[in-house]
């Protein structure tokens, strides 16, 4: 066997779909078994990579520092990231950065239930770095492509187990995510047209 366990792939997803991924599960009873969030398009996710606009940072901690960062994608939908003492590098980035700023984030999906019983989905960052506009644009196109691929797999007549799980767990039309991909791409095009 290879000495190192397989590293989880960082999935690409727009905030609209990510924030709908409220169902989580593990594949085994092992305490260290990775926790997966299930995307409504039928992909299990243990890591994400995103590039967006950091619009706001706030220390929401009570005793110790606990930084919230709002990162917005081209549709205006928000990824919420939280970094505290166990993510010192990411926390210090959120402390030091002055929004607005393009950032690239690698992180793990986390869910928590609010007092009202809603499930919120957020990201626990492994790293946050300052990004450029062209990197952001590349991420948008890549994420649109991946989203369309997932939708195609979701609509397949021979779905895999995670598509089957998504069909069972969610009653969310995947058309929403095709629209998210489309509008994100259109916003790039508009920005390019305005620049010309």
């Amino acid at each position, binding site marked *: *066997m290879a000495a190192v366990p*397989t590293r989880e*792939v960082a999935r690409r997803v727009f905030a609209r779909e990510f924030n709908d991924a409220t169902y989580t599960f593990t594949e085994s009873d092992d305490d260290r078994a990775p926790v997966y969030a299930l995307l409504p398009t039928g992909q299990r996710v243990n890591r994400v990579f995103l590039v967006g606009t950091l619009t706001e940072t706030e220390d929401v901690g009570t005793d110790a520092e606990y930084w919230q960062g709002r990162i917005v994608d081209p549709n205006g939908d928000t990824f919420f990231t939280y970094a505290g003492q166990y993510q010192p590098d990411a926390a210090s980035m959120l402390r030091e950065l002055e929004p607005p700023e393009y950032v690239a984030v690698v992180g793990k999906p986390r869910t928590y239930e609010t007092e009202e019983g809603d499930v919120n989905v957020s990201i626990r960052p492994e*790293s946050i770095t300052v990004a450029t506009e062209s*990197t952001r644009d590349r991420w948008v196109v890549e994420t649109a492509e991946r989203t369309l691929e997932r939708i195609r797999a979701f609509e397949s007549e021979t779905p895999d187990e995670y598509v089957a799980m998504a069909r069972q767990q969610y009653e969310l039309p995947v058309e929403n995510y095709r629209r998210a991909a489309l509008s994100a791409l259109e916003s790039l095009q508009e920005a390019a047209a305005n620049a010309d």
Partner: protein
Amino acid sequence: MTETDLRTHAAEIHEQFAERLDLTVEEVHGRLDTLVNEYKVPTSEARRSVINAYLDEAGMDREELGGGGNERKVISDVETAEEWIDLTAKVVELWEPRSDAVAQVGLLGDETGTIKFTKWSKSELPSLEEGGVYDLRNVVTDEYEGRYSVKLNRTTTIEALDEELEVGDDTAEIEGALVDVQSGSGLIKRCPVEDCTRVLQNGRCSEHGEVDGEFDLRIKGVVDDGERVYEVIFDREATEELTGITLEEAQEMAMDALDTSVVAEEMCKRVLGRYYRVVGPTFGRYVLADEFDEQGAPADPEAVLIKARSM
């Protein structure tokens, strides 16, 4: 075991011996059928046993046998999907199967390169050992997103060979975001003993003990395209080009901070979250970055837009 599979085997074996023995496909099939269906011998073993019996009968060596109609290929020549081929290859790595349907999955290598293989559980084939060299007959090629693999199936025969096989480099070209810089990156010290070059841990070489190490730069990075992850090694020259930090500057930074880890931290800031294209030889699970460039704005957003509208 389906009847069709046995027929296929029988026809192949018949063809292999057609010139030397007066056989009919029926006779071969009969022998296979007895072993498989009466004695419950696995098909690959039955095939082997029947072939050996005919080899004896014909006074032939195994080497004289043709590939049973299959082409014997070297790994770098695999460039069509769904082709039945024979390979002699070494098991370079075994990976953890992600599904119960897969008995073994990993990397096979020969002088010309490496290729992924999958062995299905339902094929009931013998186990391959990491580092073992095998003669594999009747494997099927497959392709996924431009990458080729071979599948071992229930008609595959596996013969362990008592020989060494030098596995050659094959060049990979990968693209994706650099999502992690692993420990052991940045400013490191290597063992100065000739031909050792091991990276020191706390001033110690695992082979030569406490030594006065020589500074070097490297990055062990993870490039992720959203579908697969690749581990990429940037040597000193590549790291200097990638980060814009020279070995000399790195040593100064470490000296000022009285800490070598500042170098890796600064490098992370400069490279994490960016997209790269990397070309270089593969070495186990690593790609050595011979050549790379950062990727800027996407080439063709229009094509994706058309796709999104047409769905």
